[in-house]
């Protein structure tokens, strides 16, 4: 996994660090400005969710290649309380923190692939990838 870099999320400054890392990797992979903005925004949403709901966790950015196509994968992991109702959390406008409720459904739209795995009491893992078109 030499193509992976991670940021520990413990404070709101780490959210800034995670998206800066993401933007740099997105540039290296060769994404254009719009995709860089999509990736940066997605990382910001995922990192903020960790900070707000789990308190701490990790965001990793990986360079990936599949069938000769280059891409970037965000892996956001925490050992927080988990998401009680994933379907509800994926609904636009749903938030338990007074936010806009745009985070998770937004990330799914911004990225090409999106996987979420969460269990109550043991944490949440979200993987989201974007491919160079």
């Amino acid at each position: 996994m030499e193509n992976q870099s991670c940021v520990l999320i413990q404070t709101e400054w780490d959210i800034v660090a995670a998206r800066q890392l993401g933007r740099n990797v997105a540039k290296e992979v060769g994404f254009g400005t719009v995709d860089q903005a999509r990736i940066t925004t997605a990382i910001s949403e995922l990192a903020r969710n960790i900070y707000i709901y789990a308190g701490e966790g990790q965001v990793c950015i990986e360079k990936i290649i599949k069938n000769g196509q280059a891409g970037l994968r965000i892996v956001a992991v925490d050992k927080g309380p988990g998401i009680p109702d994933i379907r509800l959390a994926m609904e636009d406008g749903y938030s338990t923190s007074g936010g806009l409720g745009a985070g998770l459904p937004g990330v799914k739209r911004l990225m090409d692939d999106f996987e979420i795995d969460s269990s109550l009491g043991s944490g949440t893992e979200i993987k989201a990838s974007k491919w160079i078109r």
Partner: protein
Amino acid sequence: MRIPILKLYNCLLVSIQWELDDQTALQFQEDLLHKIHETNASGVVIDLTSIDFIDSFIAKVLGDVISMSKLMGAKVMITGIQPAVAITLIELGISLNDVYTALDLEKGLEKLQQELGE
């Protein structure tokens, strides 16, 4: 770091020049409202030309400060939203409805003066 807020005639002028962290955004919200109160400004232009992404938190802070300013009698104009920012905001599901916008600072100031003149 605080975002500078300049007074220009009856308006306030804000140009956000670096990536916003949460604390700076919230501080800006408070600073802007105090400045409106202090200066009696009837309009505000917030220029986002240098901003290359807006996430849902920053969008909420921006939307809130626009509503708060409105409560205090000041109209807010957002200018300089980059193509990538417009695309990601809408994909994220945030439309910032009922917000006055203009392509750049110059057009924004003109449009705001027209709005205020009516």
